[in-house]
């Protein structure tokens, strides 16, 4: 499993994808941060956080699009699937690789917060909560992206498909408020990836939300494995 992980992380930085992802994310993050806090002379990071969610919706599909689509196109998946490793560990290794790159990108973006400490006295808990929330939402996005990448051999289709699904999740969150029927609301709410992070961003550690995001990752990684299992029989 470690072999697959290592190769994936490496391949991000052998090709341009990793650098482009980092550059674009850092640039946008810095720009958004400057506009929403420094220029406004405010240490309220709610707007920064919300805009960053949208940035991740666009940026993370770029990171996940190649994970399976490329292997399928190059036929290298034949090497992985005939190697003595399970499909589960292959999928998990790829997830961890994309997550690692995203995690460090997120960490680098978080350096912006230091400027707030220079000019004001922000609450450390709130900032840490925001970092954790972005990390969790990002992990969930990555798992969705992996699932879509496993469905196609066209990387562009994988990226656009992932973006569309993430957008649909977002729309579900908005739609929810208009549904009078509670059970439907309850179910839809489960799919709304963007409804759980509020406690984190307020500086509270929300254990339920943590479990929620981990289970979303688990569910999507699981169905990704199922896609592979199914393909063997088709």
């Amino acid at each position, binding site marked *: 499993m*470690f*072999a*697959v992980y*290592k*190769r994936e992380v490496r*391949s991000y930085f*052998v*090709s341009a994808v990793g650098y482009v992802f980092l550059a674009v994310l850092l640039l946008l993050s810095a720009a958004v941060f400057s506009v929403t806090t420094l220029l406004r002379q405010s240490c309220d990071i709610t707007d920064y956080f919300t805009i960053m969610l949208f940035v991740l919706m666009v940026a993370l599909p770029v990171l996940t699009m190649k994970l399976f689509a490329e292997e399928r196109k*190059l*036929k*290298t*998946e*034949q*090497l*992985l*699937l*005939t*190697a*003595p*490793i*399970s499909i589960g560990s292959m999928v998990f290794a790829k997830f961890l690789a994309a997550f690692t790159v995203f995690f460090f990108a997120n960490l680098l973006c978080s350096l912006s917060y230091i400027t707030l400490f220079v000019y004001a006295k922000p609450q450390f808990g709130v900032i840490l909560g925001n970092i954790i929330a972005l990390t969790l939402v990002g992990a969930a996005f990555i798992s969705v992206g992996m699932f879509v990448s496993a469905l196609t051999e066209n990387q562009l289709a994988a990226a656009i498909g992932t973006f569309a699904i993430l957008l649909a999740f977002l729309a579900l969150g908005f739609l929810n408020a208009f549904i009078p029927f509670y059970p439907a609301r309850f179910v839809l709410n489960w799919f709304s990836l963007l409804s759980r992070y509020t406690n984190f961003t307020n500086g509270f550690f929300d254990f339920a939300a943590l479990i929620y995001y981990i289970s979303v990752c688990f569910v999507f990684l699981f169905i990704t494995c199922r896609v592979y299992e199914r393909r*063997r*029989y*088709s």
Partner: protein
Amino acid sequence: MLKVENLVKTYGRATALGGVSFTVNDGEIVGFLGPNGAGKSTAMNIITGYISSNTGKVFVDGEEILENPTAVKKKIGYLPEQPPLYPELTVDEYLNFVYELRACTLPRQAHLNEICTAVRITDIRTRLIRNLSKGYKQRVGIAAALIGDPPLIILDEPTVGLDPKEIIGVRNLIRALGKKHTVILSTHILSEAQAVCDRMIIINRGKIAADGKTDEINRFIKDNRRYKVTISGSQNEVLPLLRGLSGIVRAEATGERDGDAAAYMIEAASGIEIRKALFYALAEQNLPIFGLEPVGQSLEDVFLKLTGRQEGR
């Protein structure tokens, strides 16, 4: 070593394999021979666990692949039809990746050096796979299949797209591998299987058409002799003469011409050496022979014969 029982695989309505069973013994080099679309790659993919069959079982050293996939996959080194290479890696990085992927426990450097020497890629180890020629890529693919020293090596069409020199190199390599490993080699080229394999399994339309030692199959294939003969002289004169010669069962003009000479395809009756009689008969009539060459049977001819033989039984 390998036992395959009644493999059936369908894609929608199309049947790729319709009940294939065979056994491969330790140390054999077996040619899996069939025209394109016969089901060779499907069978290889099932044996290596890449895809699943609808029904049937695959045992490697007595272990069933679906029951114990990890252990069985460890025993198989596989080179698919298109070598699964990552273009952005160097040969060394790729081989190290496969070494780790297969959780190999042999001493790393010594093992990889040995393989690289065997497949003759030592001088390109630091090069990017993307920049390699087709022949080198194929050899890197074979090297990857050898990592971990698996007892069973499966090579799917390993010489397709290679130049003649590379083909000879790969064939020699396969013969060398056969000394230490059990090798299954799939190919659609009859002469390749004849040159390399101890035994041939001939598959056609998802079914096994013949299974036997290479010598036996050669004998069977050879007992009808066909020649292409180029004769100077008028066709009206030559054709009746050829047809009238005892021992020739069929003679036809191919339509190829070389000056005043024309090419003919003749088929001698089984077990008859026709060349001497042909020479004297033509010399007597003052018709010079410009060329005479035996025509190998195409795989399609072999299938026709084999399936004909089976139906006749």
